[in-house]
């Protein structure tokens, strides 16, 4: 039985199933053409990193994957984004349900001003889970999933704002896991953290990719190289190059990619 699960997991990690398919995506903020004809396959149970200089559109692109750009005024999006072969911009799509499948972790740790427990239970409650016993179980599972359970198990009822920055970020990861998504979007999740917290989060990502598809925006190329399986390089709204991380860093096809990863600009 256990062997079967392990082989199944291995199969999923080895196989390249397309989880998210982006086709000819264009995004405008008013007249500003912020994303230009981006197409990309994001693979299941892999870590995909978006790199590029500030303002290149990598965060904007990340946000199109769970429709967080819907909140911005004057945004026009054309093209197609499919999650498990379903168009997420289709009329009938309920964004609440979409965000149940695609969780997000932000640059600044943003735990809500409430207890650790209520932070984690927030998402499940949004999606209608009220049963105390079930919530308890989800909270513990999620905190374990984010490798922070042991640090906070005795203070679940205390405010999450009392934790350190690194712990707060893992709380935010746990909070995202609690709605049981299949994709986890991370927008520069370690840029506000110290090196030790950063390495904890990176280890955690390695662990999480067994169950989740992870997309991470980072301005740290070393991080992309350390944690990701695939990397996309963005420049002024364009996806310049996308491919296997090791190949992209060792044999960049495009001159601009080479210039960026060798530190000539950015």
């Amino acid at each position, binding site marked *: 039985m256990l062997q079967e699960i392990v082989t199944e997991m291995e199969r999923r990690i080895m196989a390249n199933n397309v989880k998210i398919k982006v086709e000819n995506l264009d995004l405008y903020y008013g007249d500003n053409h912020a994303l230009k004809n981006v197409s990309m396959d994001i693979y299941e149970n892999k870590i995909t990193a978006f790199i590029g200089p500030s303002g290149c559109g990598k965060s904007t692109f990340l946000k199109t994957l769970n429709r967080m750009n819907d909140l911005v005024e004057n945004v026009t999006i054309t093209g197609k984004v499919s999650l498990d072969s379903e168009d997420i911009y289709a009329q009938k799509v309920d964004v609440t349900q979409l965000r149940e499948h695609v969780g997000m972790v932000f640059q600044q740790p943003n735990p809500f001003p409430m207890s650790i427990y209520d932070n984690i239970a927030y998402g499940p409650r949004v*999606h209608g889970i009220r049963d105390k016993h079930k919530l308890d179980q989800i909270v513990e599972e999620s905190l374990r999933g984010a490798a922070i359970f042991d640090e906070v198990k005795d203070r679940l009822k205390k405010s999450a704002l009392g934790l350190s920055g690194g712990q707060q970020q893992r709380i935010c990861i746990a909070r995202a896991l609690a709605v049981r998504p299949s994709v986890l979007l991370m927008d520069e999740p370690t840029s506000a953290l110290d090196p030790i917290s950063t390495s904890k989060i990176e280890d955690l990502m390695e662990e999480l990719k067994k169950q989740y598809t992870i997309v991470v925006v980072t301005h740290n190329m070393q991080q992309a190289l350390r944690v990701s399986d695939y990397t996309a390089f963005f420049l002024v709204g364009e996806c310049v190059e996308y491919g296997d991380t090791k190949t992209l860093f060792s044999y960049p096809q495009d001159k601009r990619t080479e210039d960026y990863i060798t530190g000539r600009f950015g």
Partner: protein
Amino acid sequence: MTKKKCRVSELFLYGAIYLCAAVSIVLLAYIIIYVLQKGLKSITPTFLTTVSSARKGTVGIAGNIVNTILIILVTMLFATPIGIGAAIYLNEYAKPGKLVSAIEFATETLSGIPSIIFGLFGMMFFGETLGLGYSILTGSLTLILMVLPLITRNTQEALKTVPDGYRNGAIGLGAGKWYMIRTILIPSAMPGIITGVILAIGRIVGESAALLFTAGSAKLLPKSFLGIFDKIFQSGGTLTIQLYLSATSEGDFDSAFGIAVVLLVIVFAINLITKKLTRRFDVTRNSN
């Protein structure tokens, strides 16, 4: 040489600042002591629990206390939800632009209008046009107009300080906008909302000009518990109105200062409660 000069002028400025501080504190303390000295002797159980009666020969402000409480309750019952609702609309739903700035400008102006103008309007519109006459309700409706800006502005300021990270975090978890507002924004803005509400109550307690020709000056107690509801449609003078009447037409300065003491105590209590409540509801405060 220059160094020495510098020190002298520094010393002088220091002294001047201390003097300014001392003057403001001493003045305040003097007013309080003066009022207490003149008014404390009027504060008796009879004064606080009975109504002035020529037949019984008693002087009391119980009726005015009840009227004040009624006016506060009726006013806040309407002003609080409307004010908070307006602030949430302006900050979370309305698109920033000309309309929003126009509304903000209007609320700001509204809060600067002399209260007697509100009184005049209230008397003509609520009293005459709507036919409510001199009543607690007319007074309350007038006061709602006056305190709405206070509540709206304070709530809005509080909402503005809630980090966008909270909003994004909640939306990113699939929360709808109203759910997010209810569970994250309002609790986070609670200290500001409470400050607005308490300031509004303070304004009501201290208001006289706007009530003088809207709520009237009757000082009888309601005859029964249910009579309280009838009282809302009847004339009723608050403490400040009675103070004005005692000190002018009735020429009873002992009562006037007695009421002043009561008002001072109320204002003091309101400030104390505000501090306690804002701290109690400050969710961003770490509790370790």
